[in-house]
C-alpha cells in the first residue's frame, strides 16, 4: 500500500492542517509517512498545498511527481493539479466552491460539498474536516477512530473543546461518499 496525496486550496482553508492531521494519524497506525508543505509564502487567500505519502514500505522520494490521491478545496487547485493525477487515481473536490467537473475520464472523481456540510453544523471553518472524513473513506487506510484520537493529542489547548464538533464534521464527510 502506498498513497501519494496532494492537498491543495487557498490559504485559510485548512489545507496544511488536513495534511498534518493525516501524517500524525498515519504515524499513529505505524505507517511510514512524509509530509512536505509548500512553505514560505503562507498568507490568507494565497495558494497553499502539501504532499503526504503514507506507505507500508519506507518512503523513497518525499516529492510527489504524480499523486494517486488529489484533494482540492478550490477551483484553481483543480485546474493546476488534475493533469498530474495518476491514471485510476482518486480526485476529491470541494463542490461547494468548485462548480465544474474534471474533464479526465480515466480517474475516479468524487465531488463533496464540504463547505455546505460544515455550515449545516454551524461552522464553515470545518470544511477541511468534512473533506478529511471523505478522504478516509476513499483511502480506507487510516481509521476514523485513529484520527479522532490523534486530534485529541495534537490539537492546541484552545482547539481541544472543538474536537467533538470536528469529529461530527468528519463523520458527515465520511458518510457523504461511496468508494
Amino acid at each position, binding site marked *: 500500500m502506498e498513497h501519494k496525496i496532494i492537498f491543495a486550496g487557498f490559504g485559510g482553508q485548512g489545507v496544511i492542517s488536513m495534511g*498534518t492531521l493525516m*501524517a*500524525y494519524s498515519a*504515524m499513529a497506525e505505524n505507517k*511510514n*509517512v*512524509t*509530509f*512536505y*508543505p509548500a*512553505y*514560505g509564502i503562507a498568507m490568507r487567500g494565497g495558494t497553499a498545498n502539501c504532499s503526504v505519502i503514507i506507505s507500508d514500505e519506507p*518512503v*523513497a*522520494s*518525499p*516529492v510527489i*511527481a*504524480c499523486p494517486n490521491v488529489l484533494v482540492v478545496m478550490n477551483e484553481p487547485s483543480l485546474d493546476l493539479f488534475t493533469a498530474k493525477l495518476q491514471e485510476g487515481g482518486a480526485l476529491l473536490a470541494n463542490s461547494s466552491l468548485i462548480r465544474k467537473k474534471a474533464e479526465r475520464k480515466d480517474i475516479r472523481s468524487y465531488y463533496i460539498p464540504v463547505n455546505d456540510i460544515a455550515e449545516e453544523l454551524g461552522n464553515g471553518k470545518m470544511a477541511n474536516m468534512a473533506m478529511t472524513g471523505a478522504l478516509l473513506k476513499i483511502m480506507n487506510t487510516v481509521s476514523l477512530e485513529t484520527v479522532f484520537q490523534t486530534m485529541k493529542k495534537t490539537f492546541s489547548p484552545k482547539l481541544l473543546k472543538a474536537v467533538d464538533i470536528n469529529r461530527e464534521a468528519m463523520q458527515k464527510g465520511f458518510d457523504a461518499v461511496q468508494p
Partner: protein
Amino acid sequence: MGEKQLMKGNEAIAEAAIRAGMTCYFGYPITPQNEIPAYMAKHLPKRGGTFIQAESEIAAINMVYGAACTGARAMTSSSSPGISLKQEGISYLVGARLPAVIVNIARGGPGLGNIAPSQADYFQAVKGGGHGDYHMVVYTPETVQEAADLTMKAFDVADEYRNPVLILGDAILGQMMEPLIFKEPSGRKFDKSSWILGNRKGRKSHLINSLSLSEGVVEQWNWELKKKFDLMAGKETMVEEYMTEDADVIFVAYGTSARICRSVVNQARKQGIRTGLIRPITVWPFPSETIAGRAKKTKHFFVVEMSLGQMIEDVRLAVLGNATIHFHGRPGGGVPAEPDIMKQLKEILQS
C-alpha cells in the same frame, strides 16, 4: 529508545543538537532554516544553554569561534547566502583548530536566489568555501531520522578532530516532517583542558589563534592539519549502497536527490531494469573507493543533482575513465522529477 515523534527536519536537527550537549547557539534568520533558531530560542535557554540572535551571520560564526574557545559545544545554522557570509569564520575555525557544527539548509542561488531546495553549495562545502588549505567532514542526511542521528555524531567528530563539521541539507530536508526516534547521544567525553581558554587558575596560559608571521610556522601547522585531514579521510567516510550488486546503471546522488533516485530504482526494478544507487552520506570525505570498485564492473554511472553538476566532478575522479558518466541536474531550486530521470535512464540503456 525514545518515543516516535513527527518532526520537521529543521526541528529534529535543533533537538538533536541540544541532546548532544550543545550549549551555545548563535544564528541569524533566513528561510528555509528558520525553524532551527526558532526552536533554539524556545528550548535552549530552558535547558541550560544560551541562544543569541546575532546581528548578522558573520557575527554568529564569530560567536561560535568564541564559545568554542572555552570548550563549549557551539553551533550555528543558516541557508546558502548566509553560509557564504560565514566562510571567513569557518576558515578561521579550522586554522585555530576549533570544533563547531555548522548547518546549511541550502536554497536556490546564486545571489539571494529563492527559497526552494538546492544542492548548488556542494563546491563551497567540500572544496573549501573559505581561504586556505582545509577540509571538514560534510554530512548529507536524506531523512529526518538521519538528520538527527548525524547531528549528534557531528558534535563528537568535531571534538575528536578539533575541526568544524558541516551538515549540508536542503529546503526539503528542513521543511518536511517525518517520524523519528531520538537515539541516545554517545556520551563520549573529550578532554579539552590542554587548550581551552577561561579560568586559568593553576595552569599556564593558552593561546588560540591562526596567525604566525615567523618563518615556516604556518607551513608546519598545515602539515599537522594534513595529518588530521588524512585521518578523517580514512576513518569518517560514510556511504550507502542500494541494489548495486548486479546493476547495469548505478545512480550516484546524495540527500534529497538520492531519495528521488531510490524511487526510480524501485520502479525500474519492477520493470526488470537492473539499476542501483550509491549514496554518499559524507561528501567529504568522498566515497571514491566504493565508486571505483563498482566502476570495474558497471559501465554506466548516472549522477543526479539539484545543480548544474558539481559532485559529478568527484564521481569522474573516482571512476577514472572506467565507465561512462551521465548527468541529470536541475539548478536554481528545481527538483528532479522521477519520470524525467526514468526516461533518461531508458535512453542510456538503449544507447
